[in-house]
């Protein structure tokens, strides 16, 4: 039985990220199985209209401007004409929305249900319950998923979290973990420095990725182990904190900043390391550790969210989120 699937999200190429690459890879896998897949998202700069990606994957870049956090303004009514047109024109059977943040995904699923199509929702992140923004987002999610046929979560912890937030029946939620394209992350031990132990960090340098923890760890480890060096890839607001630490402890030759990295360059950075360290404070799945394990690195991570479920114990060492 071949289906026509429409993936909808505010987050897609040319943005780089976990959700974006997830949507792309799932679409390619579905096309390889014979289904028809199209993707609907908003426009990015000059990239408007219809584009085709590999294997005939059609992407609609719709003229809805982004308002806040790369998402379109939630109006519900103004997105109806275009989305309905696309669903009818492409003869869509299933509409698949991604990411709880994406207003376009919620609206598309809403319109799809009104047209009698089947809807699926994939949740990529963990949320809290207590602060104001979480309460509002969870309420929105309850409305949106009340009429959704099925949901997919990327880990068992994420399933528990989504079931509690959206008040849906756990039997309608499947756990399908994320995956990496192994051919893109081939190990290469020759790239490693044989005299030193190289610790790699590749992430956005923001608070929720635990950069404050990292800032506390770097001097401690450098003090205890003179043969350790750090490579830090990625950029963000916390970069100044880390650079400050580097200055204060005179570690200029032992800590290297690579700045923002393209997704294609990540593998070349990872193979230079022996260990990947992940200090996130909250993660539904954490694809970075899978990419690193695929490249042959030992992974050290904080024990948060869905991380303990991802890798077998011999490939990962878990730790409590404190500097000690």
């Amino acid at each position: 039985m071949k289906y026509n699937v429409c993936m909808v999200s505010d987050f897609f190429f040319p943005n780089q990220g976990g959700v974006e690459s997830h949507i792309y890879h799932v679409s390619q896998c579905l096309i390889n199985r014979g289904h028809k897949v199209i993707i609907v998202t908003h426009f990015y700069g000059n990239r408007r209209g219809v584009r085709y990606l590999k294997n005939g994957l059609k992407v609609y870049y719709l003229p809805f401007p982004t308002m806040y956090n790369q998402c379109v303004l939630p109006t519900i009514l103004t997105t109806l004409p275009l989305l309905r047109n696309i669903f009818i024109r492409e003869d869509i059977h299933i509409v698949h929305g991604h990411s709880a943040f994406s207003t376009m995904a919620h609206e598309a699923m809403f319109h799809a249900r009104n047209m009698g199509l089947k809807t699926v929702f994939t949740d990529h992140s963990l949320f809290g319950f207590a602060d104001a923004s979480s309460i509002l987002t969870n309420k929105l999610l309850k409305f949106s998923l009340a009429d959704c046929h099925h949901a997919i979560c990327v880990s068992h912890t994420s399933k528990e979290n989504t079931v509690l937030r959206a008040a849906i029946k756990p039997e309608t939620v499947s756990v399908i973990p994320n995956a990496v394209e192994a051919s893109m992350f081939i190990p290469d031990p020759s790239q490693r420095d044989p005299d030193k132990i190289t610790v790699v960090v590749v992430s956005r340098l923001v608070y929720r990725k635990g950069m404050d923890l990292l800032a506390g760890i770097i001097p401690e480890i450098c003090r205890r182990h003179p043969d350790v060096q750090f490579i830090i890839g990625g950029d963000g607001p916390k970069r100044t904190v880390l650079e400050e630490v580097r200055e204060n402890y005179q570690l200029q030759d032992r800590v290297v900043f690579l700045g923002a990295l393209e997704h294609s360059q990540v593998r070349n950075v990872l193979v230079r390391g022996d260990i990947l360290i992940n200090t996130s404070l909250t993660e539904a799945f954490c694809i970075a550790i899978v990419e690193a394990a695929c490249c042959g690195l030992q992974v050290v991570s904080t024990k948060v969210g869905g991380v303990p479920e991802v890798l077998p114990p011999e490939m990962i060492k878990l730790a409590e989120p404190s500097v000690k």
Partner: protein
Amino acid sequence: MAAGVKSWKKILYEDQGFPDHYVDASFLDELRKNLYTRTYDYWTVVIESGVIVQQLCSVCIFVVVFLFMDMQLLQAETLVSVSGGLCLLGYLVHCLLTSVGRIQSDRSFADDLKTFLIFAGFSYCLSPILVSLTETIATDTIYAMTTVMLIANLLFHDYGTSAPMVSGVLSLNAGLFASVCLASRLQTTLHSFATVTFAVELFALWPALRRNLRQAVSCCHVLMTTLVAMVTLLLVSCISLTATVLLALAIVFITLLCPAWLIWLQTYKNNIHGPWDEAAIQQ
């Protein structure tokens, strides 16, 4: 099928043979509710609610004093001398507590005297301007603004908690603005000088003294609350019976009913904790 024989583990790296939407018996096992909620004791909350009653009463005292002066029942000279005397008394208490070591104060006597002289001097010199400040504004507008400002004073006052809404500065400014509004309605410059200095004492100096006394001598809080409430009710009863009844009801509501309401609401708390929580960095 091997699915029924093996036990299900919460892992993602192995195909355990169960369907994707399988719900294990251990689903939501790590969910915890209400781990960090505070439980309140009724009488403790009642005693603590005294801070709100004290501030409400000081606002009422201020309004009543203004009304007395407006009705010519109170002479400006009397008010100046009484507030001067009370200020001196309060300062002596403060010095006593500092010397005994119950409270810290990094200001010397010279600092305090200097501040007092600067303030009194400026107020006295600027009170002629003050008395004619709002001549063109209608009395109703003045009374409305005063009400709003005094409500702001009550809302933003620093009652000892660290909520984001608390702003001691905003509260003090609102109180002083209210006093300026009312002072400009009075007859002579001495009246407005008296009102403004009394307001400064009531809204700036007295809360600080209450806080220090409370910290130093633990039993005086209940005593202070009852004393202040009785004095206020007495003064208000000279003006209007309705106002007295309303004030008494307000005090009963704040002191006895609100704590009961808070404790009743706590039973509806529903905080959810689990492995999905964002980690707090332990130092």
